[in-house]
C-alpha cells in the first residue's frame, strides 16, 4: 500500500531507522508548519480569490474565469499587455547586463591589485542597502538639472536627457539603476572563480593557450553553474521588480515604467480589487515558473558541472 511505502520511506523498517525518521520529522515540522501557514495557505487562498470579485467590504463573490478573460481581452487588456511588455523588456535587458557586469567585476577583483579587499567591499556594499533608500538616492542622481550624471555630462559638453522624467529614457534609467546591486552576484562569482584549480590554467598555458582562450575554455565553462544560478535568480527577481518604479516614477511617464508588479499593487492596495490582483499574481507566478523550468530544461546544454560525466 502506498501509505505503508511512504511510512517505510519516511521512518524506515528498523528501529534505528524509525528513530532517525522521527527525529527528522521532529526537526522539519516547524518548517512544514511555517510553509503551510505562511506560504501554501495564502497561495491557495489567493488562487481561490482569483476567481472572485473581492473588494474587502463585501464577501468574495465567485465570478468564474471572468478575471482571467478580462485581463486578456477586456477593455483594459491593453494595459495588462503593456505592463507585461515593460517588465519583459526590463528583464531581458537588465539580466544580461547584470550577469556580464557582475562577472567582469569578479574577474577584475580576482586579480592581485592593491587594496583588493577594500575594492571588494566597496563594490559589494551597494547591494546591501534597502530598495527605497536606493531609489531615493537614484532620483537625485537622475535629476535632470542638478543630478550627478547630467552635471558630469555637461562637463564634456553633452546635454543629458530628462532620465526618469522622459518617456524614452525612464525605463533605461531603471535598467541602469539595476546595475547598482551587481555586487551581490559579484561576490558569488568571485568565490567560484577562486575555486577554479590553478593547475588547469597552468596546463593550458603550457599548451600555448592565450588569455582569451583560457577565459573561454576554462573560466567560463567552470563558471556556468554560477551563471545559471544568477540567471535563475535574476529572472525571478527582475520579473517582480516594483520598488524602483513605485518610488521613482509611479509607473510613468505615460506608463513607460508601469511594471507588472506595480499594476498588481495598484489593483490590490489602491483600488482594493483583491480578486483581480490575485489573478495578476497567479499569472505572474505561472510565467516565472515556465521561464525557470525552461532555463532548467536547457541547462543541460550549456551548464557544466565539474563532477558531471557527459555521455
Amino acid at each position, binding site marked *: 500500500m502506498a501509505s505503508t511505502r511512504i511510512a517505510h520511506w519516511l521512518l524506515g523498517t528498523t528501529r534505528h531507522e524509525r528513530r532517525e525518521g522521527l527525529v527528522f520529522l521532529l526537526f522539519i515540522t516547524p518548517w512544514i508548519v511555517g510553509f503551510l501557514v505562511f506560504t501554501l495557505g495564502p497561495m491557495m487562498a489567493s488562487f481561490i480569490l482569483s476567481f472572485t*470579485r473581492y*473588494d*474587502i*467590504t*463585501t464577501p468574495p463573490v465567485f*465570478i468564474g474565469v471572468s478575471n482571467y478573460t*478580462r485581463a486578456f481581452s*477586456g*477593455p*483594459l487588456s*491593453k*494595459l*495588462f499587455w503593456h505592463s507585461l511588455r515593460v517588465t519583459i523588456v526590463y528583464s531581458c535587458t537588465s539580466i544580461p547586463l547584470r550577469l556580464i557586469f557582475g562577472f567582469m567585476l569578479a574577474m577584475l577583483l580576482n586579480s592581485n591589485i592593491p587594496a583588493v579587499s577594500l575594492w571588494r567591499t566597496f563594490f559589494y556594499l551597494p547591494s546591501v542597502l534597502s530598495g527605497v533608500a536606493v531609489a531615493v538616492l537614484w532620483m*537625485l542622481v537622475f*535629476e*535632470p*538639472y*542638478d543630478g550627478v550624471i547630467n552635471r558630469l555630462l555637461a562637463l564634456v559638453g553633452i546635454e543629458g536627457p*530628462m532620465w526618469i*522624467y522622459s*518617456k524614452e529614457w525612464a525605463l533605461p534609467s531603471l535598467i541602469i539603476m539595476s546595475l547598482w546591486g551587481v555586487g551581490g552576484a559579484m561576490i558569488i562569482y568571485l568565490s567560484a572563480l577562486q575555486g577554479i584549480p590553478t593547475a588547469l590554467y597552468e596546463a593550458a598555458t603550457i599548451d600555448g593557450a592565450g588569455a582569451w582562450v583560457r577565459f573561454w575554455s576554462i573560466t567560463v565553462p567552470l563558471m556556468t553553474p554560477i551563471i545559471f544560478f544568477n540567471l535563475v535568480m535574476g529572472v525571478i527577481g527582475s520579473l517582480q521588480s516594483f520598488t524602483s518604479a513605485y518610488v521613482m516614477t509611479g*509607473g*510613468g*511617464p*505615460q*506608463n513607460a515604467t*508601469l511594471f507588472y508588479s506595480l*499594476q498588481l499593487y*495598484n*489593483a490590490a*492596495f*489602491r*483600488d*482594493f*480589487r483583491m480578486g483581480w490582483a490575485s489573478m495578476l499574481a497567479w499569472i505572474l507566478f505561472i510565467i516565472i515558473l515556465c521561464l525557470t523550468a525552461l532555463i532548467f530544461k536547457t541547462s543541460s546544454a550549456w551548464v557544466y558541472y565539474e563532477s558531471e560525466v557527459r555521455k
Partner: protein
Amino acid sequence: MSFSKLGRRDLLRAFMLTAAGAGLMACAPKVVKETVVVEKEKIVKETVEVEKVVKEAVEVEKEVTRVVEKVVGEEEAPRAPVTITDMPSQVRGSHLPIYKLLVESFQGRNPHIKVEMQFVPDSRAKWPALLAAGTPPDLNTVHDAGREGITPADTWWLNLGPFVDQEDYDLTDFHRPNLDLCYNPFNQNLEALPFQCFVGWLAYHKGIFDAEGVETPPPDWDDTSWTPEKLRETAIFLTRDKNGRRPTESGFDPENIEQYGMTAAGTAFPTLWGWCFGGEGLMLDREDRRNVQIDSEEYIEGLQFYQNLIFKDHCKVRPLQRDELLTGTGKGGSFRTPFHTTRIAMARSTTFHLEAFKALGFEWGIAPMPRHPVTGRRFVRLAANGGAIAKDSAHPEEAWEWLSFLASPEIAEIRVVDMWQACPARKSLGPYFVERMSEVVPAEHLEVVSRAPEFSNPYYWVPGGEWQEVWSAAQQAFLANEKSAREICTESAPIIQAAWDEYYKQYGM
C-alpha cells in the same frame, strides 16, 4: 379666723369651701380628663394627619428618588470602561502633542472612554487589511471623505444619521460643499463629519505687476471681470524671455523664459479647467456617476485652453520646467513652489503655502481664481478631511462621542490652523480663521481666504480600476504636448466608459 372662736358661720364657710374644693377636685379630673382626652384625641388626630402627610411625603420622596435614580442612573451610573481606537492619517510629528492634549481633554470629560491613538505611516494601506481581518479601528480620518471606502454594494463606514437625529446635531454650521462630500452617493447616508478643507486661490507677485504696470486681480469673489480669458491675457503680458520679449512679440524665445505669467502648484488639475468651461469632468459631476463625459465639446475646449497656456501662449510653466525651477533636496522642502523663485507672476495656492509665503521676501497678494463668464464656475478645488466610524465598530456610541468632540467648533479651532493649516469646515469658525490668517495674509486679502470654501468644488466618487492608468497616461501625453485635448478625450472616453460599465455590472447595476 381663729380656731378658739370658731363659729358656726366659720364652720359653714370652711365646709362650703371644702365642699367646693372637693367638688372641684371631683370635677377637675373629668374636665382635665376630658380636656386631655379631647386634646389627646385632637393630638392623635393631628398626629394621624401628620403621619399621613408624612407618609405621603415619604411616598412622594420615594417616587421622586426612584425617578431621579432612574434618570440619573441611566446617565451617571458607573459605565463599563471602553477603549476605542483612532487611526488618523497623514500625521506629522507636530501633531502628536496636540493629539495627546485632545485625548486627555476628552477623557477628562468622559472618564469611561479610553481613546487609543494608532499612528501609522500609511493608514489608508493598513485600514483595509484590518477591515478584512475584522479588527478595524473605530475611527479614521478620511481624505476626500465620501470617496474612500465606498462601493455600490457596501461601505466601510457607519451611518451617522441616527446619532445626528438623536442629538439633534447641527449640521447647518458646515459649509455645504464640505458636508455634501460626507454623504454616501449610493444610499445617501451621512458617513463622516467634516474636519477641515483645503481650497485654492491665486497668489500673485505684486512686484511683477507693479513693474509691468498691470492692475492686480480683484480680491473679491463677487467680481465677475476676472475671467479665464482675462487671466490668460494678463499672464501673457507678464511673461518675458531672457531678452525681455513677451510671447506676443517677434523674436520671443520660448526655450529661455525668464519670467512666467503663471504656474500651478502641481502639474495636475487640467480636468478642473474642462469642468470650468462647462464640461462634466470625471470626478466633478455629482449627479451622474455612470457616464464619462470628457468628450463633450465644452470639456475639450477647457482642456485645450489649459494646454494652450503652456505650449501656445507660453505663459504657463511646463510640467518638466517646474522641476527646473524648484531647487534643493525634496524639491525645496514640503511646501516650496515655483512661486518662491520670484520668477512667477501668478500661481495657484492654498492655505498650507501661506506660512511659507512669510519668508518670500517680496510683496504678494491673493485673489480668487477666475470665474467663467458663461458657466459661472471657478477653478477652485475642494479637498476635505473628515472623520468616519468603522461600520463594524464594537463601540459606535463611544466612537461617535469622540468624533463629535473632534468635529466640535472648539476642537476644530485647534485642528484647522495649528495642525493642518487648512480652512475650517464650519462657517462659525470663519471669524477665528480670519483672525489667525491675519498673521500671514495682508488685511485686504483676508476675505479671499475666508470665503474660498463657499466657491470650492469637490471631486466626487468614481469607480476604481485600471482606467486611472489610462487617463493618467493620456494626461501626461497632453501635458507633454504630444497629444491635443481632443485626442486624449476622444481616445480615452470609450475605454474609461467601458471600464466603468464593467465595474457597475459587477455590482449588478
